[in-house]
């Protein structure tokens, strides 16, 4: 009677520890005073506080969106603290000034903060709760004129660049969560790659939520000037908490003429327990704008969070610009994900590729939501969409909501979709060759996701594959 795929056991979240560190946390609640206080704490220039206040006022007039295919109780925005920073006695001068407890945390997470470990070729900015605690390899990058620092520092040291591009892709009025982020974001990462420079290393940010009842609202702004190239990696973890925590980030990518930005995410926020208690609400706005001949490529592996609401998109503004979206989204237990992309074709001969792999296990619910829009001017636009779902067991769900709007007769838009189930016959075949059920599922799923994994930088791909195995561990017996 009982199918072997039906037996569920659970594997503990590995990054669920809490760091014992003194934090400077603002009391819960949100008001104009809180917005001003955040800005003051960060020592921001005047234009910034004005921008935040405009965003806050706009947010007050907006309603939380309920069109995603997810369900959750009401969020009390006054019960969240909007700023939390590890306490330090003096401003951070170098990596050596960082609290050893904090460094230990990052070590546990496997993030190499020390310069000597940086030989691996990744420069890391680590965001702990709301503030950035250290950016490595900065000097090396500075030689190429590349700016890679925390958002706060960028505001102090490069206010002109920030003012010019902040909100240029995701305006503060864009949506409810983007407006909230614009009002209260406390830090994030900033990247500027000058004209014609190919960034020699992968840039990386690691986000960590530590404090209880804190929201994390980081903001990332990446600008690749004409002909520049940059590859950026983002990873996320959080401790286990029995209550839900809000994460509302905004990422803006600006790819100027002929530039390429590759943005990869491995998202492993705490997903809540088997009964669906706790976990991160991941409501994120990510968008890039590609100028003439520019290319923006999003790759995401979403394994964590109780709820994921995320549509990394590309505005293909310039002629011949290219947008790509490669996604693996896994849900297990009671996780819910509503994720996909928007490709807005404005320029002529613009091309976009969407490859989405959704895996649902346990009682998880996975939705792909995508919009491909070809505006009347976009002669010769081309889109290819492939959207595959895999089901593990009988209690999960997979949904696809593709929206296609074509306003130019010369456009070619393709959409392919498939739904498959991990077969008992596949699992038995692999077991008969000596593999355990978990190895078998991990192998089948990795094969299913291969087209996406090959887009990730090597080390990240291995991590993603391991994470996938962990997330699905216990989904079969």
């Amino acid at each position: 009677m009982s199918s072997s795929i039906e037996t569920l056991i659970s594997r503990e979240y590995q990054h669920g520890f809490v760091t014992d560190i003194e934090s400077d946390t603002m009391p819960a609640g949100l008001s104009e005073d809180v917005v001003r206080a955040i800005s003051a704490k960060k020592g921001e220039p005047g234009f910034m506080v004005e921008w935040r206040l405009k965003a806050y006022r706009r947010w007050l007039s907006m309603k939380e969106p309920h069109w995603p295919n997810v369900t959750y109780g009401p969020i009390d925005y006054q019960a969240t603290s909007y700023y939390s920073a590890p306490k330090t006695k003096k401003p951070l001068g170098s990596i050596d000034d960082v609290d050893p407890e904090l460094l230990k945390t990052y070590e546990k997470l496997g993030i190499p903060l020390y310069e000597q470990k940086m030989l691996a070729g990744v420069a890391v900015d680590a965001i702990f709760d709301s503030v950035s605690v250290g950016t490595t390899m900065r000097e090396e990058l500075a030689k190429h004129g590349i700016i890679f620092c925390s958002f706060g520092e960028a505001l102090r040291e490069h206010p002109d660049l920030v003012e010019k591009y902040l909100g240029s892709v995701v305006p503060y009025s864009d949506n409810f969560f983007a407006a909230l982020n614009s009002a209260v974001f406390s830090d994030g990462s900033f990247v500027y790659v000058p004209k014609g420079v190919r960034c020699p290393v992968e840039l990386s940010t690691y986000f960590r939520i530590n404090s209880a009842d804190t929201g994390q609202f980081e903001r990332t702004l990446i600008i690749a000037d004409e002909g520049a190239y940059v590859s950026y990696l983002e990873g996320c973890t959080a401790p286990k908490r029995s209550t839900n925590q809000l994460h509302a980030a905004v990422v803006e990518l600006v790819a100027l003429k002929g530039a390429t930005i590759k943005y990869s995410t491995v998202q492993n926020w705490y997903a809540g327990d088997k009964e669906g208690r706790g976990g991160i609400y991941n409501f994120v706005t990510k968008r890039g704008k590609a100028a003439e001949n520019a290319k923006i490529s999003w790759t995401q592996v979403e394994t964590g969070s109780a709820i994921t609401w995320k549509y990394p998109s590309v505005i293909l503004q310039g002629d011949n610009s290219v947008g790509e979206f490669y996604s693996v989204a896994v849900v297990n237990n009671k996780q819910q994900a509503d994720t996909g992309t928007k490709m807005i074709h404005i320029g002529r001969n613009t091309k976009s590729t969407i490859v989405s792999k959704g895996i649902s296990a346990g009682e998880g619910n996975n939705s792909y939501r995508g919009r491909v829009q070809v505006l009347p001017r976009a002669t010769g636009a081309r889109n290819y969409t492939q959207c595959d779902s895999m089901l593990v067991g009988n209690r999960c769900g997979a949904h696809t909501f593709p929206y296609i709007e074509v306003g130019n007769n010369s456009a070619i838009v393709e959409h392919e979709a498939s739904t498959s189930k991990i077969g008992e016959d596949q699992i038995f075949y692999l077991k008969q060759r000596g593999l355990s059920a978990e190895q078998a599922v991990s192998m089948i799923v990795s094969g299913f996701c291969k087209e996406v994994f090959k887009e990730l930088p090597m080390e990240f791909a291995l991590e993603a594959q391991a994470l996938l195995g962990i997330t699905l561990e216990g989904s079969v017996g």
Partner: protein
Amino acid sequence: MSLIEIKDLHATVGDKEILKGIDLTVDAGEIHAVMGPNGSGKSTLAQVLAGNPAYEVTGGSVTYDGKDLLALPPEERAQNGIFLAFQYPVEIPGVSNAYFLRAAYNEVRKAHGEEEVDPLEFADFMEEKLALVDMDASMLNRSVNQGFSGGEKKRNEILQMAVLQPRLAILDETDSGLDIDALRIVADGVNKLKRPDNATIVVTHYQRLLNYIVPDFVHVLVNGRIAKSGGKELALELEDKGYDWVTSGAPVGAGAA
């Protein structure tokens, strides 16, 4: 001691009893052919020995290498040297044959307390194995069985057998869908893998395969029981007279349904 001893084995799928009391003993160094008409339970016997959960064992015992085989999960049976060459090899899209073979090989090695091999060592090891089934190294980079022709799939099964070096190999209708050249390659592979300490059970409907893989014993399965056993000449006799010859002489009660 026998390598495997099957006693009064009964098995069902759904509510239907397929195996109705199988007795079969195989010693190391032997090749046994299990023949029989369609629906007689040949493939079920193969699947049950490999531990397919779709079949329920309802009676009898199987002792393998001194162990209670039926108490072991499929992966442990495999690690202990039981190999099933599938009648319908399963496709695993996106997983390269090389990756899959190495993972399986390492699991078996681990079970024997041996060190895992890295991809480079494994590539060397694979060279002679590929030659054994006349396969090109490019096969290793293709997804497991995906887009393989019928013959390629069967050869891939024998390649896996060569890699895992089982003590008891069960070939389930390995000849079905093979042309004469592929049949010869597959049979050659199996013959080369024969050693005094391993054994093979060849499940087949036709006598043709047994021209190439010469059995020491032939058993005819009818309606879930072994109706007749003999030497290799029994297969020829069957080819000549058809299964009706055995069916009509089946033991009393075997025809009950």
